[in-house]
């Protein structure tokens, strides 16, 4: 067996894009002595081919003949080595290496056999740098030590990847006789994240069984009972005290977001809060489902991998809904620290927000694009409280036949795992994501990071859809948090299941039975298959090289039995596993904050404030991000995320046609404003819902078919004062949805988003509720976009403007929070949304823009520059409700408002349609690219060149 080493460099005269990128990042780190960086791809191949074949492998497969050159063995060190530093980055053993798998396939196609392939990256850093600078460059730019090893110099090879096979040793973790302190210690010691009451419940269960648990039994319970999997906080009974007044909930979720859906009882809701995604009717034959998940903790440790597996994981939710949906669109919403921080402002154990943002965006880009799913909607919020705890929300929408919306696994069906193999990656992901993070998490929980390979998932998707259409399986679910443990456990909940763990295909030898069972290795689905259909389904999987393995059977004894080489390692009652988790009662407190409005002096002109808001990170253009996502694959894009005369204005929502050849579409949007939560989370939640709905309405979505999703991201909710705001937000969800008649169809919470710094201080994220929304569009040809269309058209504002600058971006750029948070008049808001929606469908509206962050002035500016036109507006036309000041009129973020462009010939019909609603003509579209807003007194309070405004808006993320 020969061990071949290949190094592939750019040929002289051709750009080394990767090396130049690293060079730029080194400069950004403040190291100025580096003159250049060369990068190389390294392949370590074990095979018995000879040197002449090795040259063919190098020349024909690994190297581009035009722009690259190769070395077999180590390349010659560059001249002036004294001034060069060599750094190699290798994947840690066990980390999935997709390129290596492809190289094996490529060499096999060339007719040779390969034993093993590893890949690495090599960097030659030219210029004098110190040891500590080398370490900094390696740590901050080149490698992520969760998953990669760094080797400096050219002497040592990475450790051998070959691992010893595992021999069964059953481990018992005795608990029957443990004291309370010891129970807590055991939970902590084994990273179970189970609290005392839960440990006591488990202790009692095994005392009654008369035996000690095995490690795998405790691990299975810990996964299944984790906050991530069962949402014990949101399902607990809660005593809420609001400003001294008490209110009791038996089950918070059932009485708020679930409850409202149940009460609304819409016949177009097919399956809600039941499956991996919420399912609603799309047309007579088709259903559509939507799920949004978070992947926060993994993205904090490994932004690229964490975000990639976040999107990869949520795509498997629709795939695992009903009998499997075809994913048609992705959404992505992120919260980061502000990206312009100095390194010394970053707590120990935390990556720089800019690095997190770049990593997260690249991760979503590479996974989503490779899956061939358009990423069509998203948002990014910045607040320094997200610095140590970024939030990464990934959503996916899928479609399926109406007849395929439910599963029907039965006793006797085979349990089959399909897709990727199982490795050590992602062990304890579910439990880890349910706890707080600390500055030591980087090292302790490196194994909790999952590593994704989009192509494995795409291959799996391709064959699963074929098997689904051929009716070859009875049920399907994804292996997400908790791995096989959760997937098989859930699918067999009402039946029972037996699994032979040694049959589970592994990425590499050495995993013990527990690791195999709880690993959160990606790209795996579990299906149940009738014995007589086994051959047919395996044929489909084989035909496209997708691995599928029978690992067990669904039984009828309502027990989960796990065996390894025939020896039983676990036996748990399904009922205890799923319903045994103790019910909690929690206390929650909310007291209105004692906040005041700031005392800002009125000004004659607000050009500077407008520019400051436009170039604040939250409002600024996200084109740098959006263009990196393929938002048009599958050919269904109707309203794109960027719109207007130069394809760069900010769309309110996306519209896609999920079925080629049908004019029916789905509109997708989101709403979120954590700043309002700093004043009152009730109104924050309400504003999020109102905003998400407005966004759908603005593009032409139907008002009567809106479905909502909730994602609560909060701090440590064992503290009553942290749980209080969450309960307030949940109450608002109920109150809004019941009036809007918009059911919640799916939701998820991520609690404990906190970070304990080295000095013991805790940074908690602000209370954050993401509302995602979708609605139907009956005829996509009637959709509208937000860009102003034509000089001479009239502009109206529909909705009332109130003195509601609390939590606004205007106050934010002034360093203030304020007190007057925007509220929602639900009946009026619903009526307004309905009328606007009808007016768009009737063709009375030429463009429509949501009036939200930054208020009227920002909305008008965006419409103007997106259309390459100007706007003249007169604040006398604005319908105001107790909002006398000019800054309030310009920047108040009052909800339920729409800015609407109407052609002169539609004036009467539009006005008639808006009858009895608060609306007023505010101005008109002009040819000259200027925004002029005059006050009620007739003064030009904003008078600015829109090209300048657009530049200010584009500048913050004008990144390479």
């Amino acid at each position, binding site marked *: 067996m020969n061990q071949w080493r290949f190094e592939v460099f750019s040929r002289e005269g051709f*750009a080394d894009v990767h090396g130049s990128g690293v060079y730029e990042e080194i400069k950004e780190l403040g190291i100025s002595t580096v003159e250049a960086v060369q990068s190389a791809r390294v392949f370590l191949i074990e095979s018995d081919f000879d040197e002449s074949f090795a040259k063919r492998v190098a020349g024909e497969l690994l190297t581009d003949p*035009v722009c690259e050159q190769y070395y077999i063995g180590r390349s010659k060190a560059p001249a002036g080595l004294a001034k060069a530093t060599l750094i190699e980055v290798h994947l840690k053993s066990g980390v999935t290496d997709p390129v290596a798998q492809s190289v094996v*396939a490529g060499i096999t196609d060339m007719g040779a056999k390969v034993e093993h392939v590893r890949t690495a990256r090599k960097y030659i850093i030219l210029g004098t740098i110190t040891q500590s600078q080398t370490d900094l460059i390696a740590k901050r730019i080149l490698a992520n030590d969760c998953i990669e090893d760094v080797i400096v110099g050219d002497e040592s090879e990475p450790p051998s990847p070959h691992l010893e096979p595992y021999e069964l040793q059953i481990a018992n973790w005795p608990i029957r006789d443990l004291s309370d302190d010891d129970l807590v210690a055991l939970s902590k010691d084994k990273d179970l994240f189970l609290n005392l009451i839960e440990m006591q419940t488990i202790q009692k269960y095994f005392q009654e069984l008369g035996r000690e648990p095995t490690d795998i039994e405790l691990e299975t319970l810990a996964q299944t009972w984790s906050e991530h999997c069962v949402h014990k906080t949101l399902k607990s009974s809660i005593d809420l005290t609001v400003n001294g007044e008490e209110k009791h909930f038996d089950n918070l979720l059932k009485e708020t977001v679930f409850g409202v859906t149940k009460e609304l009882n819409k016949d177009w809701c097919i399956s809600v809060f039941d499956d991996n995604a919420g399912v609603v009717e799309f047309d007579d034959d088709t259903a559509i489902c939507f799920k949004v998940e978070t992947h926060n903790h993994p993205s904090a440790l490994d932004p690229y991998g964490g975000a990639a597996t976040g999107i990869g994981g949520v795509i498997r939710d629709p795939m695992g809904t009903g009998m499997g949906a075809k994913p048609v669109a992705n959404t992505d919403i992120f919260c980061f620290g502000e990206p312009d921080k100095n390194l010394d402002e970053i707590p120990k154990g935390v990556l720089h927000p800019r690095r997190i943002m770049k990593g997260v965006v690249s991760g979503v880009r590479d996974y989503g694009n490779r899956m061939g799913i358009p990423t069509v909607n998203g948002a990014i919020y910045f607040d320094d409280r997200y610095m140590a705890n970024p939030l990464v929300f990934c959503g996916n929408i899928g479609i399926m036949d109406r007849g395929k919306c439910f599963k029907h696994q039965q006793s006797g069906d085979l349990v089959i795992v399909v897709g990727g193999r199982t490795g050590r990656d992602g062990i304890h992901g579910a439990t880890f994501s349910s706890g707080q993070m600390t500055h030591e998490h980087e090292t302790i929980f490196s194994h909790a990071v999952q590593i994704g390979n989009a192509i494995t998932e795409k291959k799996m998707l391709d064959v699963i859809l074929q098997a689904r259409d051929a009716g070859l399986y009875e049920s399907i679910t994804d292996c997400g948090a908790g791995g096989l443990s959760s997937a098989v456990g859930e699918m067999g909940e009402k039946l029972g299941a037996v699994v032979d763990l040694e049959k589970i295909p592994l990425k590499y030898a050495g995993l013990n039975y527990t690791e195999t069972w709880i690993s959160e290795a990606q790209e795996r689905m579990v299906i149940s298959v009738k014995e007589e259909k086994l051959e047919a389904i395996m044929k489909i999987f084989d035909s496209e090289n997708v691995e599928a393995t029978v690992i067990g059977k669904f039984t009828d004894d309502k027990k989960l039995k796990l065996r390894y080489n025939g020896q039983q390692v676990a036996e748990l009652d399904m009922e205890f596993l799923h319903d045994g988790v103790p019910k909690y009662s929690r206390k929650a407190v909310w007291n209105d904050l004692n906040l005041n409005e700031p005392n800002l002096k009125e000004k004659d002109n607000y050009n500077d404030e407008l520019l400051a808001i436009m170039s604040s990170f939250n409002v600024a253009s996200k084109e740098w991000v959006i263009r990196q996502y393929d938002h048009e694959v599958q050919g269904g894009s109707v309203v794109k995320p960027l719109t207007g005369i130069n394809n760069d204005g900010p769309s309110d929502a996306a519209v896609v046609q999920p079925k080629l050849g049908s004019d029916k579409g789905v509109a997708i949007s989101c709403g979120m404003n954590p700043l309002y939560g700093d004043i009152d989370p009730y109104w924050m939640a309400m504003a999020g819902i109102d905003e998400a709905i407005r966004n759908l309405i603005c593009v032409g979505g139907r008002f009567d078919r809106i479905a909502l999703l909730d994602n609560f991201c909060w701090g440590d909710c064992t503290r009553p004062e942290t749980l209080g705001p969450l309960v307030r937000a949940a109450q608002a969800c109920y109150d809004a949805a019941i009036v809007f008649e918009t059911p919640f169809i799916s939701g998820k919470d991520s609690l404990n988003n906190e970070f304990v710094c080295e000095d013991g201080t805790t940074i908690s994220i602000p209370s954050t509720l993401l509302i995602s929304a979708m609605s139907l569009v009956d005829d996509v040809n009637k959709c509208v976009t937000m860009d102003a269309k034509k000089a001479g058209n009239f502009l109206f504002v529909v909705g009332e403007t109130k003195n509601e600058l609390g939590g606004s971006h205007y106050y934010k750029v002034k360093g203030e929070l304020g007190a007057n948070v925007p509220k929602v008049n639900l009946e009026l808001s619903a009526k307004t949304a309905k009328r606007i929606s009808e007016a768009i469908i009737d063709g009375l509206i030429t463009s429509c823009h949501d009036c939200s962050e930054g208020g009227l002035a920002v909305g008008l500016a965006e419409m103007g520059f997106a*259309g390459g036109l100007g706007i003249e507006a007169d604040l006398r036309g604005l319908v105001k409700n107790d909002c006398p000041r000019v800054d309030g009129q310009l920047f108040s973020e009052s909800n339920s408002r729409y800015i609407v462009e109407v052609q002169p010939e539609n004036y009467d019909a539009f006005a008639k349609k808006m009858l009895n609603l608060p609306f007023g003509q505010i101005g008109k579209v002009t040819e000259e690219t200027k925004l002029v807003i005059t006050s009620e007194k007739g003064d030009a309070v904003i008078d600015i060149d829109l090209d300048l405004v657009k530049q200010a808006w584009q500048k913050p993320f004008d990144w390479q």
Partner: protein
Amino acid sequence: MGQVKAIVLRAAGINCDAETAYALELAGADAERVHINKMIENKSLLDDYQILVVPGGFSYGDDVAAGKILGNQILHHLFGPMQKFIEDGKLILGICNGFQVLVKAGLLPGNGGGNAEQGVTITYNDSGKFEDRWVYLSPQTERCVFIEKGQQIYLPIAHGEGKIVTKDDDTLKTLESDGHIAFKYVDKDGRQGDFPVNPNGSTNSIAALTDKTGRVLGLMPHPERFVRKVQHPRWTRGETDANGMTIFNNAVKYVQENL
């Protein structure tokens, strides 16, 4: 000529096959999506078809380099049948990743196969990252049967590796002089320019290549993503442009008239 039959290649990571097949059907062809394993198993499969499309996506994750692994697979298992396909006067279209595959298999700009003749490659965008944006394309040759003579079209690109480079100036000159350049990136008024007019830094603004027969076309932009009015990024402004259907229509028409 009876019904025109088109085969749309599938492989691990190919992801534009459904909308490509849809565009071919809009043009009047029968389009079938077939996995490469089936084609390797049955090498005479291609005989039944007149148009082969290698669609976009990330075949094998673009591991090693974009299109490399699938190109290598075609080179070692399907090169003969594909060469025969071309010799029989049939049409091959490679879109985005499919274009990269054709170049890396040695089917474009020549049809000789393999690295030996590969004087042209497609590599990383100058920006160093994936980009989705719309571009205008100006036809450069009258030989290519997919192209409507003189008609500028408007299409989206979505790729991270779309920059066409040649190994030397002579190769570039030959591409120009021998009519291998099918489309160049231009602005709305037909003029070449820097980024974003030329979205990836491609040499001489080259966006698409054809072979000596004019029956093999590879292009980075996606014609299958603009086959209906509402896919135009500014359709709500009433804007229209010649779209991707011309490429599919011309292919089907060519087969109907010549095969």
